[in-house]
């Protein structure tokens, strides 16, 4: 699995993805690791099928005991179906996830890890000196959905917002925004159910200082491409499966 450092300061952000060993037919995902000198958190650690590749890649950067926290933006299997295995690897860890999905996510197997239910209005995770904000992103696409904002690194981990469906081995960052639009248009129109939720999210994100927008599928947006993405999404009609 490819690991790319996307921020390096007093703490680090690393994105894992483009797994060549991933079984065919399952969607490629980006997993994120935020690490300080003492602690680390895995954001949307992925599905059961990529667990081995993911853990192998992670152990190049942090020890098992350093991973104190996990985060699940929502309940989908590509986000967190590996939970039962992380539960065996990190028995002392805590999982931050929407309160709405607790009874559902526990079906993936949660016996050791502590479930920290995040309220609808969001919360924060303190990772030594680093504070990560868990922002509400409900109905984008899940009815209980969260994103992670790091005001120091200026990174917004945006879950399925910004996601693109691409062939294996795509680059990590969007270079040509216009060429990228086709790869994400259908995804947003079909997976995102609510224009109201989308526009509310855009309004709130415009108030943040975002240098990198980091989705869970496809390429990341950097610099001016973040603004281009927000403008594009604002103009896009979503929830298109309802014809009338």
């Amino acid at each position, binding site marked *: 699995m490819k690991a790319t450092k996307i921020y390096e300061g007093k703490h680090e952000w690393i994105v894992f993805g483009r797994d060549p060993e991933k079984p065919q037919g399952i969607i490629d995902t980006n997993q994120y690791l935020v690490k300080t000198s003492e602690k680390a958190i895995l954001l949307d650690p992925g599905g059961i099928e990529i667990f081995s590749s993911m853990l192998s890649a992670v152990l190049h950067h942090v*020890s*098992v005991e350093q991973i104190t926290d996990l985060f699940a933006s929502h309940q989908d299997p590509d986000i967190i179906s590996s939970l039962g295995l992380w539960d065996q690897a990190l028995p002392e860890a805590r999982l931050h996830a929407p309160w709405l999905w607790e009874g559902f996510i526990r079906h993936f197997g949660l016996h050791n890890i502590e479930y920290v239910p995040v309220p609808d209005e969001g919360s924060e995770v303190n990772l030594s000196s680093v504070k990560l904000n868990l922002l509400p992103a409900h109905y984008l696409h899940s009815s209980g959905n969260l994103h992670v904002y790091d005001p120091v690194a200026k990174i917004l981990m945006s879950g399925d917002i910004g996601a693109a469906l691409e062939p294996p081995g795509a680059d990590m960052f969007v270079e040509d925004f216009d060429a990228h639009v086709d790869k994400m248009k259908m995804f947003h129109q079909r997976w995102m159910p609510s224009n109201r939720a989308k526009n509310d999210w855009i309004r709130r994100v415009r108030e943040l200082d975002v240098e990198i927008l980091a989705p869970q599928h496809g390429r990341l947006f950097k610099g001016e491409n973040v603004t281009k993405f927000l403008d594009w999404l604002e103009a896009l009609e979503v929830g298109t499966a309802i014809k009338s």
Partner: protein
Amino acid sequence: MNNKEAAFVSSTSVAAELFVVAQVARDMSISVKNAKAIANRAGTKARGFSPITDFIDELSIETMKLVNAINKESIELSRIAINEIRIRDASEKFMMVMTSASDAQYVDSLKPSLSNLKKTQTAERVRLNKFARKLKDLMDDISQRMAVANVIVANSRIEAVNAEEYRSNLESIASDIESSCAKIRERVNRSQQRLESAMQQWKGLMFDEGN
């Protein structure tokens, strides 16, 4: 279906097999109540029949209780079996990581988790064997009760001979009870075989792993 799946499916199917036993035992209890009513009407002509019906009634109620107990135990057995599979899968994945990430700086940090998994796996296997033994004992108990019931039914036929005009009714009920006992014995035997097969498959898997 591979061995791993077959093992826990077999243990679950024990409960399904024995569900039928509970139904048959219930039917047996109804037949016995009929026999009791006839024996009461027959009065002194069926004097010897009443204690027999009381005994078989008690036996059928006990059998239903045993089936309920077996049902609970077999569901627990299946739950342990599934948990053992999950732990084994995790253990296999961790070992894969130890190999694939052998050059990773922090690979050794996974060792305590792997060691804990192995300990849990051993504990689950001990529990699995314990529950399998308990299930076997409960099923043996039912089989023994059915053997006793057979002897009692034979006695009831002798008693029925003296019941004059009630004879054919009582003989028919004795046949029903006999048939119920045979059905229960057959189902319990099948369940015992399924359980035995599940445990053999399990032992085979452990042997394959070199444990």
